[in-house]
């Protein structure tokens, strides 16, 4: 223990003698470590934001869209022809055990008026389960009751963007807005979710009961038709199972022959998002790898300086060997020296990396996330760079011939 302390003192003194040189050598490690810290912080920040967005979309989510229309070879997009019905939704709910919630919905864009303000927004006619499925929560007011839902009641729940644009500072609960000139009572306001990855404002929306939308807002050709059905499975492992069973069930219900295409489509939305998450993973790995290269370059700097130091101190090494230093004493002395360089560089690099990242993210608004693991990883990596690149010069020192070393000028 005392010996280790003495070696540490010898190493620190040797480094203090050449302050400028030690500082420049450390700079390589500092840059490397701070780059690693910053890159990991940015990478995991991006990953966390994507994870939050996945959560905000609702977990274990499947969207069943009604089919596309085909007329004279011209095919419309999914949902252009309503082929799904409320009964389909009920059948999914009752017949597929992997399914937790089902919520049929129809959407449309409409002009909404309150007082002298008006705003064009998405109207989503749906059942109260939709809030549960998509992970919405209410910041004030309440959801629809089942009675309101069945009775096509003229009630609505507003997203935050709609509230801001129509009401300004007024509390919207209990106020009446006109959707397509039909008065609806505001019963609830949604807690904001923010933008999706692709920049769509999720809070620019109004929920109304499905029946109200069907009967009063978007008159349907056939009663009971819906554009889409949102389905939540019981767990992530149930999503695939539910997807297959829903497809099977709906093909049966729609009397589709094996040779025919589906008149509906089932989309696994979490799959889309988790592939985004994977690409964020790859990105942060790549950024970390690039940053590690600069750390290795810093390590080569350490090796270079240690070799110079060993040559400069040949005589000192000769004296030490002559008075009884063993090979491992000399080896340890120089290894500790390079370890001190790299670990001090590591500590400074962590500090500078964190400060730099905070400054960067405050300018660019990029999300960043520090983790204890990434900091420890960078620190240990710096240490092992020191040992790895310090070993060769230290070994060279320990193998010097004392007679020649003492004669060295």
């Amino acid at each position, binding site marked *: 223990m*005392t*010996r280790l302390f*003495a070696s540490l003192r010898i190493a620190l*003194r040797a480094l203090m*003698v050449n302050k400028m040189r030690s500082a420049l050598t450390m700079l390589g490690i500092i840059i490397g470590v701070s780059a690693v810290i910053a890159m990991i912080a940015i990478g995991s920040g991006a990953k966390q934001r994507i994870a939050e967005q996945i959560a905000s979309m609702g977990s274990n989510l499947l969207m069943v869209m009604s089919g596309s229309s085909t007329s004279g070879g011209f095919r419309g997009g999914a949902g252009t022809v309503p082929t799904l019905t409320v009964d389909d939704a009920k059948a999914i709910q009752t017949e597929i055990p992997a399914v937790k919630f089902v919520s049929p919905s129809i959407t449309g864009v409409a002009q909404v008026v309150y007082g002298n303000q008006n705003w064009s927004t998405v109207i989503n006619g749906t059942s109260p389960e939709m809030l549960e499925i998509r992970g919405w929560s209410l910041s004030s007011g309440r959801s629809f009751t089942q009675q309101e839902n069945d009775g096509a009641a003229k009630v609505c729940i507003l997203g935050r963007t709609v509230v801001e644009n129509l009401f300004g500072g007024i509390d919207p609960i209990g106020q009446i807005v006109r959707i397509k000139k039909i008065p609806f009572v505001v019963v609830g306001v949604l807690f904001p979710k923010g933008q999706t990855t692709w920049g769509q404002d999720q809070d620019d929306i109004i929920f109304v009961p499905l029946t109200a939308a069907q009967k009063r807002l978007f008159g349907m050709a056939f009663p009971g038709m819906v554009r889409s059905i949102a389905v939540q499975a019981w767990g992530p492992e149930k999503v695939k199972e539910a997807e297959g069973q829903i497809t099977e069930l709906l093909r049966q219900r729609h009397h589709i022959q094996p040779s025919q295409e589906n008149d509906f489509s089932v989309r696994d939305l979490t799959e889309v998002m988790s592939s985004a998450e994977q690409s964020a993973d790859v990105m942060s790995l790549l950024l970390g790898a690039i940053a590690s290269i600069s750390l290795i370059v810093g390590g080569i700097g350490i090796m270079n300086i240690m070799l110079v130091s060993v040559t400069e101190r040949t*005589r*000192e090494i*000769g*004296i*030490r*060997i*002559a*008075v*009884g*230093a*063993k*090979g*491992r*004493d000399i080896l340890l002395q120089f290894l500790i020296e390079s370890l001190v360089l790299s670990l001090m560089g590591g500590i400074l690099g962590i500090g500078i990396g964190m400060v730099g990242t905070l400054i960067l993210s405050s300018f660019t608004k990029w999300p960043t996330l520090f983790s204890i693991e990434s900091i420890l990883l960078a620190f240990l990596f710096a240490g092992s760079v020191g040992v790895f690149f310090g070993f060769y010069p230290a070994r060279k020192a320990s193998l010097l011939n*004392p*007679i020649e070393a*003492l004669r060295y000028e």
Partner: protein
Amino acid sequence: MEPLIQVQELVKVYRLGEVEVHALRGVSLSIERGEFVAIMGPSGSGKSTFMNILGLLDQPTRGQYLLEGMNGEHLSRDELAEIRNQKIGFVFQGFNLLARTSALENIELPLMYARTSTLKRKEMTQQALSAVGLEGRGHHHPSQLSGGEQQRVAIARALVNQPSILLADEPTGNLDSKTSIEIMGIFQRLNGEMKITIIMITHEPDIASFAKRNILFKDGKVIEDR
């Protein structure tokens, strides 16, 4: 009791590229405990090679060297380092102190490698420091000391482990004559009072006259021993 140092037919051949240099051509002698020996001879006579072998810094090509009856021939680098640490003290012409390191820390160096405890180390270092008459100068760095004082620090370092032999390679080579005489005074006192065996290389006859025995080397052989 066997002599402290016994060498028989020591031969040392260096290869310098194509050329073979015969540094020692068969040296036999023995040195008893408590002797003060001066080794003289012109440069290239093999006296430095002889000292290196005595100091276990080098191995002979042929012949036998027994230190306290023990043969160092088949020992590893680290084992030799340990014997040097325990039994041999070195004093060099150029002092060979560690720069930017205080006198006390220089003297302490062999004890560090001997893994002596901190308390014991402090005590032994102080003892060695006062043995060379440098009490109170322990915290000075070599650059703050005169040549004579630096050599005294070097002598204290050589003494600190209480070795069997003190090997001095031209210890007064870099000193003026007044300081040289002071250093020789220290050597005589160490030899007389503390019974330390001293083997010293010099090419100055008046320095050699401080020793009790003079050995003259020429062309790798002992030509005079009195």
